[in-house]
C-alpha cells in the first residue's frame, strides 16, 4: 500500500514536471526553422512527394539506419539467446496441427498480405506509409502463417539471406552516396525524376524497399525464434 | 675553560677524600640502623675490613667478557660522576672537570655504571640478577619524574644548567639556598632521592636481607671489591649533587661532609620507619605525591 502511495506521489511529481514542460512549450503558429526547410526545400531537393519520407530516408537517414540496426540487433539477440538456451533439448515440440481449411486459406492470404506490404513500401515516397509499415505488414503475414500452421518452416533461409543482404545493400547505397553524390545516404545517386511520379526521389524508393524487406525479415526472424522456443510445462 | 693537566692530581685527591667519606658513612649508617633496631651493629671500620678482604681474595672465575667488564663500568660511572662534580665551591683544586659538562651530564652519567653493571650481571646467567635489574630499571623510570621536574624547576629558576653556577647563585646565607627559594622543588627532589638510595621502602632491587637478589648476585672477590668501592663513591656523588643543587653547596670540606652526611641520613631514616614496597607499589607512589610536587615546582616558576 505504501509502495502504491509512493508511486502516486512520484507520478504526481512527474506530472508537475510535465506540466512545467507543457507550460514552457513554445506555442508557435508556423513551422520551426528546420521544418520550414524540409517543407520548402524538401520536395525540390529530394523529389519525394512525401516530405516525411524525405526526412526519414534522406535528411535523417542515419536515424533510420540506426533504427534498422536496432531491429537487427534485437533479432540477433533473440536469435542467439533463444537458440543457445534451447540447445540442450533436441526433441521437437509436437504442436497440434490446425485444420486444413485454415492452412489453405492462410496460404492464399499470406502472399496477398506480402503484396500489400510491398505496395506500401514501394510507394513510401508518394503516400503515407513506407518501409516500416510495409515491413510490419509483411511480418503480419508471417504471423498468420505461424498461427495457421505452427510447424511452418518455409522461407527460413530466405529470411536470413534477406536480413543480411538488405542490410548490406542499405549500407552500400549509403556509401555510394559519398562517391556518387554529396554524402552518405544522399538519395541523388539515381536520377531523381519528378515529384509525385512513381519513379522519382532517387534512391528513396530503393532504400525504402530495402528497409521494408529488412524490417519484414527481422520481424519474421524474431517470430521464428519465438516460435521455436520450447514450451514450458 | 680548557683542560689543565694539573687538574688530574687534585681531582684524584678529591676522589680519595670522597671515597673516605663514603667508607666512613657506610660504617656509621649500619651502626645507627642497628641501634635503632635495638641491636649493637657493626664496627664503624667494618667496610674497610670487607674491602680488604674482597680485594685479597683471588677470584678465579669469570662468566665472560661482559661479566668481567660489568664492575669496571660500575666503578667508572661512580668515579666519573665525582670527577665531573664541583665538590668545593670556589676552589680551583676541587672543582674537578665540572667545566666539561653540566647537570645533564651528571644525570646521564648515573646510568653509565648502572647499565654496565646490569649487563655484566646479565652475563652471569643468574636469573636473580636479571630480576633485580628489571626491578631497578622499572623503579628508576618513575623516581626520575619528580627529580627531573625538580631539576628543571631549579634550572629555570637560576637560568642555568651548570651545577657550579647554581651553587654560586645560592651563596650568601641560607636564605639563598634553593631549599628556601624553591621549597617545592626541593621536596620533590628529596622524595626522588629516596628512590635511588637503595633504602627501604625502595630497596626491593637488592633485597639485602633475604636471598641475594640483584645485580651483584654472582659477583665475588675482586669484582665485589670493586663494586663495594663504588658503593662508597656513587651514593656520595649523588648526595653531593643534591647538596649542590638544593642546599647551597659547600665552600670547604667540613661543610661538605656535614651536609652530605645529613642528606645521606634522610633516606636512611625514612627506611627505618617504612617497610619495603613492591615495585609496582613504589611506582604508584612516585606517580602520586612526588610527581604532583614536581609539577607544582615547575608550575610555580
Amino acid at each position, binding site marked *: 500500500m505504501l509502495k502504491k502511495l509512493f508511486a502516486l506521489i*512520484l507520478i504526481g511529481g512527474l506530472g508537475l*514536471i510535465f506540466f512545467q514542460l507543457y507550460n*514552457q512549450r513554445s506555442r*508557435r503558429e508556423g513551422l*520551426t*526553422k*528546420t521544418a520550414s526547410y*524540409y517543407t520548402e526545400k524538401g520536395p525540390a531537393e529530394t523529389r519525394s512527394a512525401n516530405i516525411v519520407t524525405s526526412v526519414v530516408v*534522406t*535528411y535523417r537517414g*542515419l*536515424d533510420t539506419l*540506426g533504427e534498422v*540496426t536496432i531491429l537487427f*540487433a*534485437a533479432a*540477433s*539477440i533473440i536469435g*542467439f539467446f533463444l*537458440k*543457445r538456451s534451447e540447445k540442450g533439448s533436441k526433441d521437437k515440440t509436437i504442436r497440434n496441427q490446425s485444420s486444413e481449411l485454415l492452412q489453405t486459406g492462410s496460404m492464399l492470404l499470406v502472399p496477398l498480405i506480402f503484396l500489400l506490404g510491398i505496395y506500401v513500401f514501394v510507394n513510401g515516397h508518394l503516400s503515407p506509409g513506407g518501409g516500416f509499415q510495409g515491413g510490419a505488414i509483411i511480418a503480419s503475414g508471417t504471423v498468420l502463417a505461424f498461427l495457421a500452421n505452427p510447424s511452418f518452416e518455409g522461407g527460413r533461409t530466405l529470411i536470413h539471406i534477406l536480413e543480411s543482404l538488405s542490410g548490406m545493400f542499405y*549500407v552500400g547505397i*549509403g556509401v555510394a*552516396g559519398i562517391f556518387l553524390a*554529396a*554524402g552518405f545516404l544522399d*538519395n541523388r545517386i539515381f536520377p531523381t525524376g519528378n515529384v509525385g511520379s512513381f519513379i522519382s526521389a532517387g534512391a528513396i524508393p530503393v532504400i525504402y524497399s530495402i528497409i521494408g524487406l529488412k524490417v519484414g525479415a527481422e520481424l519474421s526472424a524474431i517470430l521464428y525464434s519465438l516460435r521455436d522456443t520450447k514450451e514450458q510445462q | *675553560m680548557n683542560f689543565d693537566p694539573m687538574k688530574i692530581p687534585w681531582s684524584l685527591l678529591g676522589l680519595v677524600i670522597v671515597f673516605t667519606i663514603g667508607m666512613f658513612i657506610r660504617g656509621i649508617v649500619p651502626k645507627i640502623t642497628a641501634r635503632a633496631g635495638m641491636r649493637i651493629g657493626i664496627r664503624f671500620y667494618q667496610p674497610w675490613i670487607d674491602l680488604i678482604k674482597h*680485594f685479597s681474595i683471588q*677470584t678465579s*672465575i*669469570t*662468566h665472560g667478557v*661482559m661479566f668481567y*667488564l660489568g*664492575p*669496571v663500568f660500575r666503578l667508572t660511572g661512580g*668515579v*666519573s660522576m665525582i670527577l665531573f662534580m664541583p665538590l668545593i665551591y670556589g676552589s680551583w683544586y676541587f672543582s674537578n672537570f665540572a667545566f666539561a*659538562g653540566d647537570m*645533564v*651530564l651528571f644525570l*646521564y*652519567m648515573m646510568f*653509565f655504571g648502572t647499565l654496565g653493571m*646490569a649487563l655484566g650481571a*646479565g652475563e652471569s*646467567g643468574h636469573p636473580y640478577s*636479571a630480576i633485580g635489574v*628489571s626491578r631497578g*630499571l622499572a623503579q628508576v*623510570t*618513575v623516581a626520575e619524574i619528580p627529580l627531573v621536574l625538580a631539576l*628543571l624547576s631549579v*634550572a629555570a629558576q637560576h637560568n642555568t*644548567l651548570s651545577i657550579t653556577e647554581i651553587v654560586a647563585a645560592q651563596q650568601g646565607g641560607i636564605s639563598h639556598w634553593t631549599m628556601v627559594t624553591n621549597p617545592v622543588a626541593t621536596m620533590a627532589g628529596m622524595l626522588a632521592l629516596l628512590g635511588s638510595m637503595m633504602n627501604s621502602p625502595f630497596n626491593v632491587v637488592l633485597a639485602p636481607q633475604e636471598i*641475594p637478589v640483584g645485580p651483584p648476585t654472582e659477583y665475588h*672477590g675482586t669484582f665485589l*671489591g670493586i663494586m663495594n668501592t663504588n658503593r662508597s663513591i656513587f651514593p656520595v656523588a649523588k648526595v653531593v649533587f643534591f647538596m649542590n643543587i638544593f642546599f647551597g653547596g659547600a665552600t670547604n670540606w667540613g661543610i661538605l661532609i656535614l651536609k652530605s652526611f645529613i642528606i645521606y641520613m634522610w633516606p636512611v631514616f625514612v627506611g627505618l620507619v617504612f617497610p619495603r614496597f613492591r615495585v609496582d607499589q613504589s611506582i*604508584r607512589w612516585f606517580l602520586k605525591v612526588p610527581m604532583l610536587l614536581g609539577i607544582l615546582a615547575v608550575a610555580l616558576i
Partner: protein
Amino acid sequence: MINPIYIVAIGLGTAFSLGLLRKLGKEFSFWVTIFALGAMAFISGHWLSAFLSHQITSTVITTAGGKAPFVIVFNMGMTEALFSFMVTMGAVFSGFYLHDRLIESGPSAMAVLLAGTMGLNGIILTGDIFNLFVFMEISAIATAGLVLLVSDFKALQAGFKFMLASGIISGLLLLGIIFLYNSTGTLNISELHSKAGVILKSGGVATYLITIALLLELKPFPANGWGVDLYEGAPSGVSAFIASSSATAAFFVFLKVLPLGGDISLRIAAAAGISTFVFSNLMALSYKNTSRLLGYSSIGQLGLLVGIAGLSKHLGDKTLMIILTLLGTHYLAKAGLFWLSGIVKNPNTDEWRSLRKSPVLFAFFGVFIFALLGFPPFPSFFGKWELIMGLVATKMYWWAGAILLGTMFEGIYLFRWFSRALKLQNNDTATPAVTIYSILPVVFFGFFLFYAGYYTSTFVPALRVMCLAPLLFILLLGLLDFLPAFLKNIISLAGVTAYIVYLWPHIQGNTFKIVFAGIFLGGAILALIAGFYRRGKHMGFYPMTMLMFLGLGILVDASNLLELFYGWELMTIGSYFLLIRGERSLPHGLSYLLFSLGGSLAMLFGFALAHASSGSVDLSALNHIRIMPALAYSLMLAGFMTKTASLGLHIWLPGAHGEAVADIHFMASAILLKAGVFGIILVLGGMGNTQPYAQKILFVLGWIGALTALIGNIGAAFQESAKYLLAWSSIGQLGYIVFGLASMTHLGWLAAYGYTITHFLYKGILFLLIGGVAFRVGTADMYKMGGLIKRMPFSFFAVLIAIITLAGIPPLVGFTGKWLVYNMILSKHLFYQGVVIIISGVIAFLYLFRLIHVIFLGQLKDRNRKVKEVYVWLLIPAYLMLTAIFALSMFPDMMLARLGRMLTPSFPEGALVWDGFTASSRYGTFNLQIIMAVIGATFAAVFLWLVFANRKAQKVKQFNIFYSGEAPSRPELTHYGYNFFAHYRKAVGFMATPLVTRFWDQLSQGLHGLSSYGRAIYTGNAQSYLYHIVAFVVVVYLLSAGGIS
C-alpha cells in the same frame, strides 16, 4: 582523411554480412569481427594522430548531401577522435577477450558486438540530438544482448533490469528531445548550443529531462542499483566493455550536452557526480564480490568525472586534461581488472590469491589497482593533482574534500582486496587457466597504462625528466628479475650510485638535503650491501626496493610540490611491497597502505591550499600560506606524520615493521621513517612560528611528539618479539624528533636533526643485527634466545654501542641529543612536555636492557648452541655505521656545528656556541672530548687494576652459578626473559592499552556499518530500481526547481 561515416558503414556492413558468412565457420566470423573493429579503430586512430600532430582542425561531416543544421552531421574533433578510438579499442580487446563466448554464441553475438560498438561511436560522433538517442538505444540493446553471452540467472535478471531502466531513461530523454525541438526548432547540437537564450526562456524543463536522462545513464547514486547488478551479472569481458567503452561514450555525450542546461545543470552534475563517487565507494566497503566491487568502483569513477564536468567552470582549461587522465586510467585499469576477474573466475575477493600463480598477471593486477587510486606514474596521478589544485584554488573546498574522502573509501576496499590476494595462502588453489585471448588484452592495457602515464607527464611542466628516468631503471630491474639475487644487488648498487652521482651537484651546499640524501641513499647503499646475504632469486624484491629508494631520492631532489608528491607516492608503493614481504604482515601492510593513502590525500589538500594562496607549486609555496593556513599546515603535517608514525597514526608501524626481515626492517625503520621527518621539516620551515595559528599547531604537535615518545617507549618495553620491540622503539624515537621540531628553536631543530642522523645510525645497527640474529635463531621472540654473546660477539659489541648511543649515555654521541633537549626545554619553558620526553628517554632503558640482556646475555639455550655469527654482509654495514657513531662521538662538532650553521639563518637566536670542542648554550656546556677522555682514562685504570687483581680468572661453565644448592640443568629454567617487566605492566600497563587501535577499529566498523545500512537500497529488485530512477528525476527536479527556468 577517411570519412568517419565509414566507422558506421564498416560496423554495420560487417554486422549485416556476418549472417551470410555463417557457412565459413565461426572462427572466420570471429576474425572478421575483430578485423572490422580494428578497421573502425584505425579510422578514429588515424584522425587522432592527425589531430595530435596538428595537421588538421575539427571537421563537420554532413550526410545526405544537405546543409548542416538540417541533416544529420558527424563532428570530428580531437576529443571525438580520442573517445571514439578509446571506445573502439576497448571493443577490439574485449571482443578478443570474449573469443570463447562469441564462438559459443555464434555470428549473431558478434554482430551485436559490432552494432553496439558502432552505436557507441555514433554516440560520440553524431551532432544531432535525436540521432544520439537512436545510437544510445542501439548500444543499450547491444549491451543487453552482450550480457546474455552467459545464460545464468544472474546475467538474465541483470539484463532485464538494465533494459527496463534504460527504457524509462530513454523515454524521458525522448520527451526532453521533442520539447527542446519544440522550443528551439532544431535538433542539431551545435545549433542548440547557440540558442542558449531560447533554451533559457522555454526549454529549461526539456533540457533538464535530457540532462537527467543522460546523467541516469551514468548511474548516479542512489538510482544505480541496476547498474551495479549489470556489472555484476554480465560476463567479465562484457563488464570490461561496459566499464571502458560504454561508460566512456556515455560520459562523452553527457559532456557534450551538459552545457545546454546552463549553471543549474552544472550544479546538478557536480552534486550528483561527487555524491555518487563518495557513496558508491562507501557502499562497496561491505561487499566481497569482485565484479560488484568493480561495478561500484566504475560507477564511482564515472560519478567523479560527472562531478568534474559539473565543476568545469572552476577548473577552467585544466578540465579536459583532468577528465582525460582520470577517464583514461579508469578505462584502462577497469577493463584490465574485469578481464582479470574473468581469468580468476571465482568472484570472491579472497580467491584472487590464485592469481599469484601467474606472477605477470598479478603484477598487472597491482598496476591496475594503484593506477585507479591515482598513484604515480599513472595518468590519474596527474589528474588527481590538477583536480584538487584546481578545486581548492577556486575555493571549492567541500567538493575537494568529498573527492578525497571518496578516494579514501575506494582505497580501503581496493587495497584490502589487493593485499589479501597478495598475502593469503594459495597452496590449495588451482593456477588460473589463461589463453592467449584472455592474457593479451590485459598485458596490452597494462603496458599502455605506463605509456599513458609517461605521455601525460610530458604535458606536466612541473615534473622534470629526472623524475621519470629512475622508473626506467626499475623497469629494467623488473625485466631482469630472473637473475640471481646477488647480480641484481650489484645492479641496484650501481643504480643508486649513479643516482647519487646525478644528485650530488643538485644538493651540494644544501646541508638539509645532504643530510636526508645521506640517510636515504647512503642508507640504500648500506641496505644493499646487507642484501648480499640473500640467496636465491628473491623475486620482486629489487624493483620495489629501488622504487622506494629512488622515490626517496626524488623526494630530496624535488624542486616543487608535484615532484615532492610524486616521489612520496613512489616511495609509498615501493615500501608497501617491502613491508608486505613478512610472513604475517597482511593486516599490517594493509593498514600501512591505508594510512599512507589517507596521509597523502591530506597532504594533497594541504598542497592545494598552498598552491591556491601562492599561485605556484614551488616549494616556496609552503611559506606563509594565506588561505586557511591552520588547516593547510595541519593536513600536511598529518600527512607526513603517517610516515613518522606519530601518536594516533602509529598503529600500522609495529606490525608492519615487526614482521619485516632484517634488511627490510632496516630500510623501513631507519630510512623510510625519515621521509616523514623530511616533510615535517619542510612544512614547519614554511609555517614559521609567529602566527597565532602556528603556535597552536606547534603546541599540539609538541604534545603529540612527547606522547608519541612515551607511548612508543612504554609499548616497546612490553614486547616479547625483538622486532616489535624495535618497531615500537622507532615510534618513540620519532616522537623525540617531532617534539624537537615542534619547539621551533635552534636547539630543538638541532636536536631533531641530530636525532635524525644518529637514529639512522644506531637503529640501523640494531635493525640489521637483531634482524640477523632473529634470522639465525629462527625466531624473533627474545625469550627463546639468550646467551648469544658467546656465539655472536661481534653483533653483541655493535648492539651494545648502539644501545649506549640510543640511551644517550655519555660519552657517545647520543648524549648530545639529550643535552640539547634539556636546553631546549629550558629555553622554551616546555616543562610538561619536556618531562614526558625525558622520562620516555629513561623508559627507553627498560626495553634496551631487555633487548640486549634477553638476547645476548643470560643462559644460552640448547637449540642455539650451534648458531653462527650473523652474516658478515650484515655486519659490514653495521660496523660502518658503528664507525660513524664513534667518529661523531669524538668530533660531535663535525655534525652539530655544521647543522648549527645551517639553522642559524632560520633560527638566529639561541644557537650553540662552539669554542674548540666545548659547546655552550645559554644554560650549559658540554665538551664531549674531555668527557670521553675522563671516562676513558677512568675505565682504563679500573680495568687494568681488575686485570691485575684477577689475572688468574678463568671462564667457567654456563651453569656454574650460585643457585641455593641446586644445580640448574636446563637454561630455560634460569633465563629470565618472558614478561620481563611484569611488575611494570601491573603499575603502568594501562598506558599501553591500545586505545588508538580501538579508535580506528571502531571507525572502520562504523564505516562498514554505514555501508551495510546503505545496502538496503540495493535490494536486487528491478521494480525498486525503477522507483529510484523516477524518484531521482523528481527529487532532483524539486531540489533544483528554482534554478530550472
